[in-house]
């Protein structure tokens, strides 16, 4: 049983590298009736004077909601460059990412701001799984969010953060795309991971589906999808996940790849 709420919130942190298209924002609820979230939940973040847009909750600590935003159009540009002192949060939207039922080795693959829900997810499952490998891929170094510093992901001994950048970058462990990383660095060892979760650009998710399909491992893969989201509350029907009868804002954004056969056929091929 969801219990949606509207939460007025105040900017308490804004982290952005010079000229970066990406920023981390922390907003604090201004009411004690703020909503709790689980990893995978997103919210409609209303920028007064602009619109309300879907943003993954990258972390929540009490009344503090963390977001990672990338410039795309007017609302995200405003958020990245000059985040408003006050916003409104409508949520929690969507369903939690299905957690691994038992221990095991978990691989998380986040491309760009797609990393957001996986950060929250990593910190939540770390306590009971064997290991979490969090691979974070970006195009260029100025898009890189310092996950260690901001989200303190290194506080967990069993969480390994691997940074993958397409351009040359000293912070990176690997130069290339996430798919390159999987091909080169993991290769046949995909099977070693009990569950794999991926979030990022659609082309990346499509390729990953192919890789897992070929390897016969679709049952281990969960994809965090994006669709156009309008109401975020499950009534407008805009966010239907192609090839399925699921609403992203209610049943998603994370779905098992096994359910995405028709999605793959419609979207990726």
């Amino acid at each position, binding site marked *: *049983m*969801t*219990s*949606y*709420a*509207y939460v*007025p919130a*105040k900017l308490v942190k804004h982290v952005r590298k010079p000229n970066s298209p990406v920023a981390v924002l922390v907003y604090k609820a*201004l009411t004690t*009736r703020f909503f709790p979230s689980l990893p995978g939940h997103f919210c*409609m973040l*209303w920028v*007064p*004077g602009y*619109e*309300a*847009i879907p943003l993954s909750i990258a972390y929540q600590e009490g009344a503090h909601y963390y977001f990672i935003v990338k410039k795309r159009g007017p609302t995200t540009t405003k958020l990245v460059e000059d985040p*408003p*002192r*006050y*916003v*409104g949060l*409508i949520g929690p939207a969507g369903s939690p990412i299905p957690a691994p039922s038992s221990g095991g080795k978990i691989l998380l693959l986040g491309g760009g701001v797609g990393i957001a829900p996986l950060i929250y997810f990593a910190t939540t499952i770390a306590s009971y799984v064997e290991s979490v490998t969090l691979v974070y891929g970006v195009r260029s170094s100025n898009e890189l969010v310092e996950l260690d510093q901001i989200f303190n992901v290194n506080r967990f001994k069993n969480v390994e953060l691997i940074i993958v950048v397409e351009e040359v970058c000293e912070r990176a462990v690997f130069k290339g795309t996430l798919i390159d990383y999987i091909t080169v660095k993991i290769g046949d060892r995909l099977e070693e991971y009990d569950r794999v979760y991926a979030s990022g650009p659609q082309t990346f998710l499509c390729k990953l589906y192919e890789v897992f399909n070929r390897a016969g491992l679709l049952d281990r893969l969960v994809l965090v999808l994006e669709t156009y989201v*309008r*109401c975020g*509350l*499950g*009534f*407008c*029907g805009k966010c*239907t996940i192609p090839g399925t*009868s699921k*609403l992203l804002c*209610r049943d998603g954004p994370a779905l098992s790849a096994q359910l995405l056969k028709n999605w793959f056929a419609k979207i990726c091929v």
Partner: protein
Amino acid sequence: MNLNIDVAGIKLEHPVMNASGILGSTYNDIAVLARAGFAAFVTKSFTREKREGYGTPIAVPISETLSLLNAVGLENPGLEGLAELLDSCKIFGKPIIVSIAGSSPEEFVEIAVVAEEHGATAVELNLSCPHVRGRGLEIGASPSAVREIVGIVSSSINIPVIVKLGLVDRLVEVASAALEAGARALTLINSVKAMKIDIYAAKPILGNRVGGLSGKAIHPIAVRAVYEVYRELKPDIIGVGGVFSWEDAIELIMAGARAVQIGTAIIYYGPEIVREIVEGMKRFLEQQGFRSIEEIVGYAVS
């Protein structure tokens, strides 16, 4: 014990349908409703032309009262989309009611005719949208405007015409005009014009500023509207407004409704809530010794 009932001549396996605007825009929406177990489906309100709707947010939850404020702006795919939707939804084999929000009698007729051609079971004329100028509450507040539109639509199609009204000063009069002009049933009520302001942003939150209040907050208002119209006119009524539980549904039926629609409860609890409501109603009837829904229609009205 079954919960069969008919309203406006439409046979229903039980009295619960979705309210217009909640999951009635696409084939997939209807599929979701069908899977959940609704007895009939009501489409989003259609206009002749495709409409994009208002800027976001189009809805703001008001959780303290299990309510919602919305201003979607009658977003819909227009006539073409309607034909497609109806054609594709035949496979569900359940009544489908097309909601229409025209801005002129001609537009209402045009859409109603397409609805009939493509197999709609009935049309529901939305004469009560609280936040779209020229398509709603102004019409529904005027007995003569209601008479004109309902009259011309009723004489243009053979499927039942249902008229959806909202909170207006002369509700009984308007209801009476609709019935005289040929309406087979009334749907009562639409959401109530309202607003929420974020005091930190110092702005109305909805993209359209003003919207319609729905959910638990308006339930007692809906009960009163149904009661009053039923007492005076005894028409077929579909009750809507804040039905969140089987008790709420029974309350509307005892006030005079033959069927109910649920909107905001689908948002808060998911479409599956329909089962709980239907099961609860069944249990209640059994426990209280009633033999059908019919027996309790208007049971509290005197």
